[in-house]
């Protein structure tokens, strides 16, 4: 499996990732690291209590990291969540809706991680 194939599989924008990271080996490095990045677990763990600061910070970080990696869909979803919890912004969604969105991100993240594992296996 090539990295382009991985991006196709997980719905990422490889060109975007190339624009930001400029080197394939960096894309390779960070796509492999995605699963370990705590920002995701931080967000998922916050799902229950919905502490606004934690959700905002985690969502904001996910938005940035995913945008750099060309994981456009994940980045957009995280961005919406970040706006919902940005200090100063009023809340628009119910807690349930928020949890649903976190769940959506989680599923997309998990399926991306699955794809990444396949990619890693194919590379070794």
């Amino acid at each position, binding site marked *: 499996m090539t990295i382009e194939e991985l991006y196709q599989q997980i719905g990422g924008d490889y060109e*975007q990732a190339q*624009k*930001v*990271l*400029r*080197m394939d080996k*960096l894309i390779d*490095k*960070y796509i492999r*690291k995605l699963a370990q990045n705590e*920002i995701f677990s931080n967000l998922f763990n916050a799902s229950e209590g919905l502490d606004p600061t934690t959700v905002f*910070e985690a969502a*904001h*970080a996910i*938005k*940035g*990291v995913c*945008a*750099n*990696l060309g994981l456009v869909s994940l*980045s957009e979803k995280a961005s919406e969540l970040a706006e919902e919890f*940005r200090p100063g912004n009023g809340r628009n969604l119910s807690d349930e809706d928020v949890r649903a969105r976190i769940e959506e991100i989680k599923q997309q993240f998990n399926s991306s991680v699955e794809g990444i594992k396949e990619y890693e296996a194919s590379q070794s």
Partner: protein
Amino acid sequence: MIRSKQIDRPQVVLVVDDQEINRDALGVTLEDYYEVIYAENGKEALELMNEHFDELSIVLLDLMMPVMNGYEVLERVKDDEQLKRIPIIVLTSEKSAELKALQLGAADFITKPFDIHEVIIARVRRIIELSEGKKLISAAEHDHLTGLYNRSFFFEYVNRVYLYHKDMKMDALVINIEQFHAINAMNGREFGDDVLKAIGEGINEFLSEHNGIGSRTHADHFDIYCEHQDDYQPLHEKIQDKANALSPNVRIYTRMGVMPYSEGVDPVTMFDRARAACNMARGDYQHPVIVYDEKLLQKEMLDIRLLNDLDKAIEEKQFKVYYQPKYDIQCDHPRLRSAEALVRWQHPELGMISPGDFIPLFEGNGLINKVDSYVWKEASRQCSEWKKKYNYTLPISMNVSRADVYDFSLVERLKKLMDDNHLDCNSIKLEMTESAYTDDAKRVLEVINQLRALGFEIEMDDFGSGYSSLNMLSQMPIDVLKMDMKFVRNIEESETDLRLVKLILDIARYLGLTVVAEGVETGGQLKLLKDAGCNLVQGFYFSKAVKPEEFALMIEKEIEERKQNDD
């Protein structure tokens, strides 16, 4: 040869982001052009900034970070004199954050994701250039020796304070070093620079405790603009102490003029007045700090008027030459021997102006040459006229100022004056104040030798009024010593003064010099001087300086006496 790269300062970029991927994304973009260092949060960033503040060209700062966020970094840097010189570009994806960051002092922002790296490079480069340009300006802003502002920046800031902080009551101060050129000449430029540095240090210390700014405007001129204080003696003492500490062998004197806050008076006028006050303190080592007041204002106005009127006065012959006789007191009856030509100014509007009001003024700016030349011409013409009329030459003394000595045509001009008036050089005596001898001894010695070779007699004027040294007396080839009037004034009352006069007379006798006692006013003084062996006296006891027609009568009387003696 030094390559330009070696002259360039290293350009280090600090990338601050909690996400490694973001740090790397920027790193790969920047590392072709800069040395890149990284921090994961604001706290680490501040530590690295403090550690590398002199190499850091720029900081790229994420806003949302754990431990310490980017806003807090901006806040802290804003209040830190050292760190705030490093430009910061904020990394953000939110429009709202941009404004806040810029308000907090960020130089620019880069939006996430970092997709157009050429834009990133261009922005980083532009901000670095801008900031280095600013630092260059900052280098030009300060005087390299003292770290004080240079003249143009100082007055720019002074004006800002004056225009935008009208509630602040600011004083203007001007500080000069006495005879700085001589300090440089005698001890070398390096020592002169040390003096300037020491004074700059004193001023900087003062400014660290008081609200104000300071400048070395040029050479040894320092200006301070600071919030009003009643007493500047402590500042002067501080500066004086710094200067004194430099060398036990060189005495440095500073003087200070103060123009206290005065509502509505603009800074230029404030500093002009402080400067006028500072000039008043010139040479007055007892009163080195002078505060500008109403009296000084009037004096200044008069000075400006006199300076303005000088050329016209010469043209219209407003200067009048008066003659004060000098009598030989060692004869049975005192006999007229010579006279001193003294100048008066008959101003058409201000009336008779005392020489005390205009001579020091013109001496201070070199214009005294014009007055001296006028007097020499007139006195020589008069001497020649009397010579013809009476067939008798009574020598006239003329004053030669310090500034005249530096005129390289002096000897030639005086010789020509004698020739034009058909006078022998021994018809004219030249009086030089003792301060002229201390300035540039070599030059003075040269001039005196040339003048004496021509036949002029040289008189040392005001001996004992300033820095006299016996050593100088033995070195300078003079003919006559004019003892300052302050020695004579109290000889009737003070045994010590009389003893001092006798001592001077002894020394003069030993060196073969004639002594003229100045300022003799009483018969008692005359008798004591005569008994002590003084040759000649000048003073109100015999006569004040008089108009030529009155003096002519004295000459006639002397001629009459001569005839009688001859008979």
